[in-house]
């Protein structure tokens, strides 16, 4: 889908526009500087949620919806021609079983190609894809150039090297291999990281001058805590994360790092790795409520998210959403890009609640 955002075409009935541009507001927020109003991001509505949103807001596209809501971040998906998913998150065919091959339905736990391989020298028996064959450089440039430069143009890179390493073996096997045969785990995750570094290089070169930020990440948390102990993450996963962040920084890009779940014990690590904003602060996960994060990290980093999408946005009334946003604004006068606590807007979120969220943000 080409970007067609043109701010002159539509009015924003959800409150007066602020005195800062989208980009100024975003940069001030992640630098913990004063803002005219909170920075915000709609997130990524899943296809099943789109018709309801368009109908409710009486718009023709998500681009028009974003103008109406007046959020600050414009996501640009990496154009990756690899059917059937055509999504870079599905670049590796590790699974031994057939599956739907959609970004949200990748196999993590099914047996993977490396399930029975314990010799790191055999890592290249897997047909590692060359991203240059699939990543559409011209479309990347076109998409980035078409986006309104007032927006924070964010490349949705994901580059989920840890999750892919889990899929490479089958998650349960992968996590055991990590402890029992770390050389094997490292050989695989390093090759995955190399793939993403090359893919990202192609994308960053193609979009140079037309991109402001990137979204990368892996899910490290469950509802109650980290899935993997911090030491193992530091040893086996964060070296790759560091390379991905450093690469983005070399292109002058701000880095938003995503991880679902309860990740409090590694937030300091992410800060030290160079992350500019931590997404999505899954509000109902242990220790991830805005108050706890403010106490631990206010002024040390910025966050993106905070409006609970597990209960509040799904079941709450608009006035409850409004109250939550006002609470977030009180807690974080800056340093928080207000957004749903999961980037995927699912069809069970009533559009009226999305409206209430942005009314409260922009009021």
């Amino acid at each position, binding site marked *: 889908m080409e970007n067609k955002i043109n701010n002159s075409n539509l009015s924003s009935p959800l409150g007066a526009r602020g005195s800062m541009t989208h980009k100024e507001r975003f940069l001030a927020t992640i630098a913990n500087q004063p803002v005219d109003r909170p920075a915000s991001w709609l997130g990524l509505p899943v296809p099943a949620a789109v018709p309801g949103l368009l109908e409710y807001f009486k718009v023709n596209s998500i681009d028009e919806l974003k103008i109406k809501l007046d959020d600050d971040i414009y996501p640009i998906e990496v154009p990756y021609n690899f059917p059937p998913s055509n999504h870079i998150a599905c670049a590796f065919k590790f699974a031994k079983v057939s599956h739907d091959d959609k970004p949200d*339905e990748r196999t*993590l*736990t099914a047996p993977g190609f490396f399930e029975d391989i314990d010799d790191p020298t055999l890592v290249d028996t897997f047909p590692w894809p060359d991203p240059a064959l699939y990543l559409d450089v011209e479309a990347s440039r076109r998409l980035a150039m078409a986006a309104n430069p007032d927006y924070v143009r964010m490349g949705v890179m994901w580059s989920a090297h840890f999750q892919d390493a889990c899929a490479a073996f089958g*998650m*349960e096997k992968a*996590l*055991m291999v*990590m*402890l*029992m*045969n770390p050389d094997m785990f490292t050989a695989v995750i390093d090759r995955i990281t190399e793939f993403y570094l090359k893919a990202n290089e192609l994308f960053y070169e193609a979009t140079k001058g037309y991109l402001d930020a990137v979204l990368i990440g892996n899910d490290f948390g*469950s*509802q*109650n*805590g*980290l*899935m*993997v*102990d911090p030491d*193992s993450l530091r040893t086996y996963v964060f070296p790759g994360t560091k390379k991905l962040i450093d690469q983005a920084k070399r292109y002058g890009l701000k880095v938003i790092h995503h991880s679902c*779940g309860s990740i409090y014990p590694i937030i300091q690590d992410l800060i030290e790795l160079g992350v500019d904003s931590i997404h999505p602060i899954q509000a*109902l*996960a242990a220790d991830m409520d805005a108050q706890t994060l403010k106490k631990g990290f206010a002024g040390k980093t910025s966050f993106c998210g905070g409006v609970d*999408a*597990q*209960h509040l946005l*799904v079941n709450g009334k608009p006035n409850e959403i409004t109250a939550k946003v006002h609470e977030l604004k009180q807690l974080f006068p800056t340093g928080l890009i207000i957004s749903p606590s999961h980037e995927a807007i*699912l*069809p*069970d979120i009533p559009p009226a609640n999305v409206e209430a969220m942005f009314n409260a943000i922009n009021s």
Partner: protein
Amino acid sequence: MNQELLEKLSECVEFGKINLASPYPPQMKGMPGADEITKEALEAGVTPGEILNEALISAMNKVGQKFSENKIFVPQMLLSAKAMSASMIHLKPFFANGSVKRKGIFIIGTVFGDLHDIGKNLFSMMVEGAGWEVIDLGIDVKIEKFVEAVQQNPNAVVGISALLTTTMVHMKPVIEAIKSAVPETKVIVGGAPLSAEFAASIGADGYGKNPQEGILWLDKISA
């Protein structure tokens, strides 16, 4: 001697020492694991019931407790479960001939529409470690499959999991169908977006915020 073997076995399971060849945990490298110690214990006359109750269940209970307190994480828990399985293999003949009894049968699956099974798999391991026979129906389990399973195992307890807000709402019709087929069936639900209130509202008998809570509930209803 027998007590010492049970303690050693318990330690292997608690710390994930599967067998002699396993390099994990580093402090137990080169030492026999759950596999060898179970064999040795049986040869020494330790009863399968003692192995199950005094070593395996107690060790997995400690594992569950540490996991719920974030003192260990998924990889360590998986290795403990693997060590437990290495021991259980030697007990299978005794389960088959009825000389050792399990606490009951536990049927589990993710609700239809939901493909996320990490939580379900972890809970299954913990339930097996708590002394239950587990029938894992897998992911995206249709209502009919749950019903068929409870009809075939009318005294079983059922566990249903969901990760998404869009799929957790499918749990209610599953519970209704199960209870309609075998009314006395107890059902426990779990998954990231669930709460005790939601569980009660859909007619579930139990809710586990984490695996350990689920195990405690199972222990309570099977006591």
